[in-house]
Every structure is written in C-alpha cells, then in structure tokens.
C-alpha cells in the first residue's frame, strides 16, 4: 500500500463525517482508505494535459424551470418522515448559531 493514512487523518475525517469510530473500525477504515487512494492514484498516471475538467457526465445543458409556483402545502406528508415534530416543525437536538 503506497498511501498510509495517519491516525490524525482518520480522526479528522471522522469529525467531518460526524462518525464516531471504535479503535478497530479506525484501523479498518485506515487500510480501506489507503487502498482506495492507491486505486485513484492510477488515474494520475494518465497524461491529461490539455484536457478540460469534466463538469457533468451527460451531454445535457440549460435545464430550467419557469418561475411559477407549482407546489402547494405538503407539510403533513413531509413531517411524517420526521422522528420528532412540534408545531409544524422538525424537532432536532438543541443547536446554537
């Protein structure tokens, strides 16, 4: 494995992904990530000089909608997915700005 993932990196990625990993899971993730990066490195072997970065896989562009209201009130259906709700709103753990 050419890519060695450090403990700090796996810790940081865990924070970004909001994941709490056990020591075992961390070791497993480190080796998985290293192998994935090795695989991606293969792409680096290609000569891409003069190749425009691709922004979309389909040859489609300019898909627009007109500025017309098409949706009505569907609060009940949307809230039916919420684990908890109150006063027509989604209830979440206390969050500060």
């Amino acid at each position: 494995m050419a890519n060695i993932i450090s403990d700090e990196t796996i810790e940081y990625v865990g924070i970004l992904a909001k994941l709490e990993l056990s020591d075992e899971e961390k070791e497993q993730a480190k080796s998985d990530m290293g192998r994935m990066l090795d695989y991606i490195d293969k792409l680096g072997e290609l000569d891409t000089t003069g190749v425009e970065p691709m922004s979309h896989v389909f040859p489609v562009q300019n898909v627009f909608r007109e500025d017309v209201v098409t949706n009505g009130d569907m609060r009940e259906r949307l809230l039916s997915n919420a684990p908890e709700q109150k006063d027509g709103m989604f209830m979440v753990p206390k969050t500060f700005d």
Partner: protein
Amino acid sequence: MAKEYETVIGLEVHVELATKTKIFCGCSTAFGAGPNTQTCPVCTGMPGSLPVLNKQVLEYAIAVGLATNCDITRYAKFDRKNYFYPDNPQNYQISQLYLPICRNGSVEIETKDGGVKSVGIHEIHMEEDAGKLIHDEWEDCSLVDYNRSGVPLIEIVSEPDMRSAEEVIAYLEKLRLIIQYLGASDCKLQEGSMRADVNLSVREVGAREFGTRTEMKNLNSFKAISRAIAGETERQTDLIESGEKVIQETRRWDDTRGESYAMRSKEDAQDYRYFPDPDLVPIVVSDEMLADIRSRQPEFRSEKMKRYKEEYDIPDYDIEIITGSKRMADLFEETMAICRQPKKVSNWLMGETLRLMKEKEVEVEDLRFSPENLAKLIALTDSRAINSSVAKEVFEVMFDTNVDPEQYVEEKGLKTVNDEGALKKTVEEVIAANPQSVEDYHNGKEKAVGFLVGQTMKAMKGKADPAMVNRLLKELL
C-alpha cells in the same frame, strides 16, 4: 512617532432575489406563511428528489452582473458546499465555487472628497438560502422551519478595496440602488433580504502585505456596519500594537453591547469539500440570452437624472433625491403620467412626503399612498376645491391609509366655500367683533389684515380660499 494604520475591507453581500418561487423547486417564496407549508421533497433534502434551476434566478444574476460591469461566465455550473447543520437539510448547500456566473466587475462610489473610486467585484454567484432554526425553551430543543430553505440568493464578493466605513456604506448604497432599479430584490437590511459580512484587516500605512483578516457577521443596519468596522479596527490595532497576533476567525457583532465575539468554531475546521453537483447540468449562456437580458435592462439612475433634467423643470437637488430610490422615482413617474405636472409632484414628494417619512419613521419602500391618489389631490388643489392647508391635512391621511382624497374631502366636508355671499357674511361678523384691529388697519397697520384673515379662516373652519378672504376684507374695510 506613533505608527499609522489603515483598515482594509472587503464585503460579501448576500441578496435575496425577488422571485416567486425557490431556486430549485416550485415552492412559493411568499413571506409569512405557516412553518413548513412552503416546502417539498427538494427543499427539505429528501433522498431521490432532483433540483431544477429557476430561469429567473439566472436572469437576475446576469442582469446584476451586467449592471456591475462583470464578465458573464459563458459556461457556469453549481457545486456542493458540504457541512452539517440542521438548517441545511441536504447536509450541503448548492452554491458556485469553480465557475460562478459573474466575475471581474466594479462599482463606482463617490468618496468624501468628492472624487470617484472604483470598488472591484471579485465574483457573483448563485446559491440557496438555509432554513430557520427556532429555539424551544420548553422542550430544550431546536425546531426547524424550511420555508426559507431554497430561497434564491446571489452572493456578491468584492475585492478588498474599501478603506473606511464611509466607503463601505457608499458601496452598499450603490449596490442596493442598482439591484432595486433592476427589480431583482428589495434589499432590506433589517428584514435580511440584503446581508453584508465584513472582511476586515489592519496594516501599517505603506505596508504591501495585508494583515490577517476576520469576518464579521450579524450586521443588519448601516449603523451597525459602521460601528462594527470602528470596533473591529480598534480591536485589531490594539492587538498589533501590543505585539499580539490577529487570529483569522469569524466573529459575531453584538450591536447592543457594541462589541464582537468569536463564533464557536463548529468543532470541525472550515473544510467544505466542494465538488460539482451532479444533479444540476451546466449552464451555457448564449449570445442571444445575453443580448435579450441586456435589452431588458432598465434605465439606471444616472440616465434617469439626465432625462429628468432635460424633460422636467425641477431643481437638481429634487432630481437627486427622487432618483436616489427606485420607489420614489416610480412614484414620481407614475403620478406624472396621470397629471403631467412635474413641479407639483416633485413638491409633494420633496416636501410633505419627506417630512412625514422622517416624523413617522417610515421607509421609502413602505410608502402607502398611490400615484392615482396623489394625482387626484393635485387636481383638487388646482381646481381650488381645497386650499393648501386642507390639502396638507388630506395628504397626511393619505400617507397613513392611502385614502381616496376626493371621497375624503366630500365625506369630511372640507371643500372650500366659494359662495361669496356666505363668506361675506362671515367677514362682516369678524369685522364687527374686532373693532381694535379695524382701527389699527385704518391707522396704517397693514399687519392687522393678517389677523382678520386668520379670524375669518378660523370661523370658516379653514375651508375658505385665503385669497378671496383677503380681497373681501379689503373691500369691506
């Protein structure tokens, strides 16, 4: 000798666009609806839902770009900015990092010494707003309303070209006027349809490098912006003077306490891991699209000022004030279209309107009286159906409730009494009741007439034509 410092300021201005629907779905953007009643699977981030760009958002963004001398990006796209926060249901905000719609623009502002300064615009990009978090003390939790989620925004990022609070305010006012003239937003700072974040650093005068900057948030008035700039300049200067380092961070301005504090870093660093949004296809701006938007650009302030000067015989100062707000210019032109009396319309706007706005603390956007009613009021005074002091009274009622002046004058019986016989009788009574003034008048005291006119007007409850009263008095004396 003490070192001299200068403040370097750049702004990130978010403007909420005046579209009927959200940026990526057909939900209404109307204000004041019940929580989550204007939401759908797209703007609540339900798996499998697909965003589709509102064409009006693109057109507004391009129109603002053209009006601020930007290059329009012919091949633009959207990217995902990743972060976790409950007001952001997708766990990413759809924004533009790599190919924003507008770049390299500029806005000219007037400086204190009467000169002109160009403030560069780094870029303008399109993005979506987040939902609203409400803290529930009772349950000790937060509640989320996604009605604002997906409301279209443009973010206008300036270059660090400003050096003082005055320049910042001038830049914001200029930007606001351009956007209001375009009808792209009402740009109300208090209500959050225009929000400015201030990036500020301090350096020694003559230094080449910029100092470390901070970003100040939560500024919702021009006054708060000025105070925050003064406060942050002082804080950073003190740190530098005492040999400490300015830390690059986001700070929140507390305007009531007049100080800022570092916002709790949300555990993770600002690592947004942007990548192209695969749900949205690229935007290709054609020559036709650009020409079409360009042809629909409105008459901006400088053109309007020039035209007013040529077409209407009103003072330069009036022109400056009237064109200084889109709403005022619209009121002027719409009233003018009905009554064709520029001077009189301008007088009502410059006089009573400005006076009452100041007295009642009403913003120009919140003016209520219609052009139709102002034109009617002008017609009523022209035909001498009411005198000028009654007209002012009626205008105040119109200012508060947009009442129809014709109806109001009729109902309240405010019409001037043009019946010479009735007026003559009152004048005779006033003369009889004030022998002293009559004597004064005969002894050459012209002023006495004024007193007698006043007494007559009082007896007529203000509903007389003062010129007629004056004439009758002189005849009868």
